């Protein structure tokens, strides 16, 4: 059941993170936050999440870099965790890069109604 599913949200913009968390929690997910890439990587190591939501434009470490570190060179890291990019970067170049680095989804924040996000996640986990 969705109730038992855990999500790690790596996002430097606190209000945005809290907003999505509220919607996701309403849909029965348990959400943890990391406000930068390094913290996110550490938290992913400590606990097995069903899904990681990953912003791209973050200081120090970008979401794409975090994605590469999570999946590793052969793309097989964290096989039981889905990773979805949640960004406002609409460039196809970035989207393709995420696909190559074994992301499971690429969602543009401004183009999705937040309650739709829970629906999309529901299809993945």
């Amino acid at each position: 059941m969705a109730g038992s599913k855990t999500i790690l949200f790596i996002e430097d913009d606190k209000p945005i993170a809290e907003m999505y968390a509220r919607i996701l929690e309403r849909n029965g997910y348990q959400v943890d936050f990391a406000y930068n890439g390094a913290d996110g990587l550490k938290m992913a190591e400590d606990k097995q999440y069903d899904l990681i939501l990953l912003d791209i434009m973050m200081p120090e470490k970008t979401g794409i870099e975090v994605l590469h570190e999570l999946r590793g060179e052969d793309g097989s890291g964290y096989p039981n965790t889905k990773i979805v990019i949640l960004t406002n970067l609409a460039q196809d170049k970035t989207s393709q890069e995420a696909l190559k680095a074994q992301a499971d989804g690429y969602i543009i924040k401004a183009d999705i109604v937040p309650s739709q996000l829970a629906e999309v996640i529901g299809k993945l986990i």
Partner: protein
Amino acid sequence: MQKSIRIISMKADQFRRQTLALFFIVSIVPALVVGAVWYLFTQTSRLNFLFLDFDSFVLPVILVGVIPAVTLSFVFAELLARPVRRIRDAVLELAKGNFSTQFRGHGAGEFHEIGVALDSVATKLQQTISEAASETALIAAERNKLRSVLGAMTDGVFALDHTGRIVLFNKAASELTGRSITEVAGQLAEKMLPFRSNGELVMTRWLANQPGTEHKVGQWKGLELYRADGTSLYVDVQAVVLNDDPNGIATLVTFHDLTKTHQLEEMKVDFVALAAHELRTPITEIKGYLDILNHEAKQLNKANREFLERTIASANQLSGLMHNLLNVSRIERGELGYQPEHLDYRKLVTDVVGDLKLRAKQQHRKLTLELPPLVKSIPISGDPTSLREILTNLVNNAIEHTGPSIGEIKVQVAVNKPNVETSVIDNGTGIPAEAVSHLFTKFFRVGEMKSTTRGTGLGLYICRAMVEAHGGTIWAESTEGEGSTFTFRLPMRTVASVSTADDNKEHNQKITRGAHGWIKDNSIH
């Protein structure tokens, strides 16, 4: 002229000598006769005429005949030669260009007639020369005019002969290219002025394919031209093939410098992209919290609920606008990101229209889909995100321009090999005939609709760019008051390309794309 004058002057001397000789002969004969008569008269008493006294014969002959005869000869010869000499001098003056010289009056009789004739020759000569001079002045004036016009033009102008060599090069062309007229004269245009589009010499190639004598005009926008110093210009170029005169100008080329406009355009596009992107973060938050409010605010009264719904609609519209602006900036930067995939168009249309049905229902419009009944799948090579956007834009427009409850929209797909045609047909307000041809231009909005509907005038522009990126075409037909039909035609995938479908670079990963991004189906790592 000089030669003929020399002949005239030689003839005058000869004439004088001949006249002198003639007079001498004519005078000496009567002198001899007179001398003989005089002798006989003085010697009759002796009756001895066989033995002539030399002294008494010669002296009277000399005195009475020879001396006056010789004198007269000289006088007459001189009288005759003088007008001839004068005419010779006058002709020499004429040769120097002095047309005021008078020939007549230098003698009587035939000499007068010759003088009059020569006077009229001189007058005619003067007329001809002055006419030629004024014509030369006219030509010079025209040449100066042409030079001033070409020199004052801000557009570069140059002309080529039949071998493609530069035969004319104006000041602006020299300034724009950083090359002097002497440097380019007689050189091949493709060497000195290589206009390129994506590295290709488009104008040279076009000119090579223009045989015959017809006037033809070639136009190119945004070509790149490298200056002598290695910097480059963005220019619009127009070439006219003349071909009239095999020894004259074969091609006339004008080019307009758009470098600054191009830079400004780039800045504008960059700014739009940046602004639209920066605005996306706050709009995401606005939409998110409105969504939370809508779900969680249970105690709102009816009016407040409506306000909230209106705010949500406006926020959605704002994010749609920014989405379109970003798309336009991507189109204009050539970053449309067209990622073709092998897909079944029948399935894609079914999915998209299925999603749109919900929105149509909310807006109280009837949306139906009509697929070709006997075709199981429609293979095409296309970018699913773009195709979804095209369909969504057209259906949303139809919803906007039909009335609630009475609005009927039909999406009709027809296979017309080698193409597939998709029409979005509505029974709405229709579009005035004069507006139909402008529908697909940027920021165009039909006049009277500006006040009744919200929109940016970007949707159809984006649709056209996306359809064209697929190698297709889009058009509209409309009758005011009856409705509109928007149709786009996409090329279907050929059998040859179907066989390579398994080489899909996405490694057979199934991906579901939506308006908001993509997710993998059943992804397993």
